[in-house]
């Protein structure tokens, strides 16, 4: 139970960090970390198929799409 609290706390801090980073690549990395911990929480709630889909879409696909989008625009927020 303490472990679930730790994971939720880390997820919250990563989400706040993703919104205040000025370097957009760092923000994308923090968002990928939020998605990874969300997959762990789905796994702890005994839903391994949902965790598999979340890990595939959230961690890899969204990261790659965001990186391609940042490459077409600017990297640093002003």
């Amino acid at each position, binding site marked *: 139970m303490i*472990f679930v609290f*730790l994971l939720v706390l*880390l997820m919250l*801090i*990563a989400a706040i*960090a993703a919104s205040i980073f000025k*370097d957009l*690549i*760092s923000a*994308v*990395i*923090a968002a*990928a*970390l939020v998605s*990874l*911990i969300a*997959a*762990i929480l789905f*796994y*702890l709630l*005994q839903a*391994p198929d949902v*965790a*598999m889909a979340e*890990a*595939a879409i959230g*961690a*890899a696909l969204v*990261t*790659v799409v965001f*990186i*391609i989008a*940042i*490459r077409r625009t600017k990297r640093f927020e002003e």
Partner: protein
Amino acid sequence: MNGTLIIFLAIIGAGLILCFLRMLKGPTASDRAVAVDTVTTTIVALLVLLGFIFERYVYLDVSLVYSMISFVGLVALARFLERGI
């Protein structure tokens, strides 16, 4: 759950917190990328341990997909940081 498994969970939690501090602090984006990759490796170990605790060995497939998928994201990130896709 006996005492050994609780000690394992505590060690994995300590590793997660330390890598997380590096992700928050790291001066460049490369430091953060390496920290998130280390968190991924630690979480794969956690998934295997939880599959052992719950005694459902179907759950090990999740850790397989997890480690393969995170590799793709890290390769895309490293390629962008080196020369920009």
